[in-house]
């Protein structure tokens, strides 16, 4: 018993000595490493005209266009040299159809967070980042002019939507 007490005493002395040594450690105060890549950074492939129009159609209508519908849409797209302009006209036309699956403003404002998640998943095939979620929530909550159609149209005509 006496021997055990001596061992414990020596061990305590050793450990306390160690603690004294660690007291000299330099502490670094810094944030944890954060991945600062932009959301959607892995999207590198530009959609072809056919893919762009076909996906816009299916993202809005929930079904793929028939062959004839696709031919008509691509023909319309090819008839004008300003692709940004004609894409805009085609998208506005798709949006202005009762087949477009667009929630009401009331439904959007009833659950803004879900609306934002579903919109990002529908058009960007990803979840929004925290920052994106915060910005969109703030915008929808504080700007009564913002409607689901406006959000959908902005997504469909944004740069990220043109990439896979």
């Amino acid at each position, binding site marked *: 018993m006496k021997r055990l007490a001596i061992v414990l005493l020596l061990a305590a002395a050793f450990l306390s000595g160690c603690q004294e040594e660690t007291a000299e450690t330099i502490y670094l105060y810094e944030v944890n490493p954060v991945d600062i890549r932009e959301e959607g950074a892995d999207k590198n492939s530009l959609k072809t005209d056919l893919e762009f129009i076909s996906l816009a159609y299916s993202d809005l209508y929930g079904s793929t266009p028939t062959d004839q519908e696709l031919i*008509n849409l691509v*023909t319309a797209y090819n*008839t004008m*040299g300003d692709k940004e302009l004609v894409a805009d006209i085609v998208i506005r*036309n798709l949006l202005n159809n009762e087949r477009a699956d667009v929630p009401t403003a009331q439904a959007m404002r009833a659950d803004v967070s879900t609306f934002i998640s579903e919109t990002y998943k529908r058009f960007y095939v990803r979840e929004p980042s925290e920052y994106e979620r915060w910005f969109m929530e703030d915008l929808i909550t504080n700007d009564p002019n913002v409607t689901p159609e406006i959000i959908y149209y902005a997504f469909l005509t944004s*740069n*990220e939507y043109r990439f896979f």
Partner: protein
Amino acid sequence: MNRRNFLKRGSLLAASGLVMPYILPSGRLFAKTMSRKVNHVVFCLFAGGIRNIESVHQNEGNLMPALLRGQGSTMPGLQPVPRSPRPRPLQEEGTLFKEMRYAQGPTGHFNGHTVAITGQYTNTGLNLQENPQSPTVFEYYLKHNSPSQTALNAWWISNALGPYPALNYSKHPSYGAQYGANHLAPTQLFAPGVYPAISNPKQFQFHEEEAIGKVRNFLNDNFSKQAAGNGAGIVQSAADRQKISDFTQSLIAKAASGGLNDPIGMPSRLANNDVYTITFAEEVISEFKPELLAVNMTDVDVCHQNYTQYCNNLRKADYAVAHLWSHIQSTPGMANDTVMVIIPEHGRNLEGNSIADAYGRFAIDHTSDPTSREIFGMILGPPGVIAQNKTVGTAANPVGETIDMVPTIANLLGFDAPEVKSILPGRALTEAFA
């Protein structure tokens, strides 16, 4: 300062005034270029493959009474075409190049168009899905014209799609989409089935547009890549884009109200794509008064299957071109200040193929035989600018080639800068100048 120094300094100052750029009152850098002869050029590709035998040689009688002098045709099977709106054949309002040549390369429609629009022969096979390698006349104009203009002043109106939309700009590293023309294929845009895809766009109110801008800017700020560039069409400002959007919607409204029935005075039962294409070119002219507009017609290419219909379509194209010229002359700002340049892209073979039409006439292809390289040209314009009622070139002594069209247009509009001339192998057809 002695006399020698005075003269030296004076001559240097004068020389610098000739070559140095200067600042306009607007603040824009104004680089001096060659002087203009006119402020507008309309380049009409009377295309689809037309033999000189049926056009200027008039072997079937005069199938082009609106353009050419000569006894009318009595060929059986011809459809009625309205009389020319001009009081005399167009050849009397300019210079006829009776024998020109498409000298090199395959006599294909897209090859021919590419040569005419770029001023460069193409001897290699063309990738139909790609823009040409050499700069187009639109790019030369938009890059080198001074003061610089926007694409609202440069239009390419094509009769069909396929490869033709790709002719509004090239893949040339020093040019490209940023100098591209506005392209429109109106007969395709307004085709049944296609038309509904663009005819009812959602209209946002001003405050909604502001909200859209806010959202889109946020989205684009969070994504570094852009869909712009050579694959994304031409580049123009939002304001210009809006003008074209408004113009397109006005055309849609006009078509819906029947305003485009019986186009350019031709009954709709007779009107073909060429006639409608010219109709829309006239609409662009009325709206934008462009400095450079190119338009093509291709319906005579029915000649691969039906010779008589080829002759009918030749007559319709003839009428349409005269109507276009008449429209220009009734458009304030363009009347008496426009030159119209007309050429087919190539001819057709001497020998027919094996397909006979209802009248027993054989159809004709175009496979690069010597006859398929024979074309005509016509340059119309104000008397002080273009030589009137003049004919140049004979079969034994042809004058002018397809590659001369771009240098001629560059000279007329004054963008034939040394950099342009150094690229182009052709020459301005000065024989047509007054």
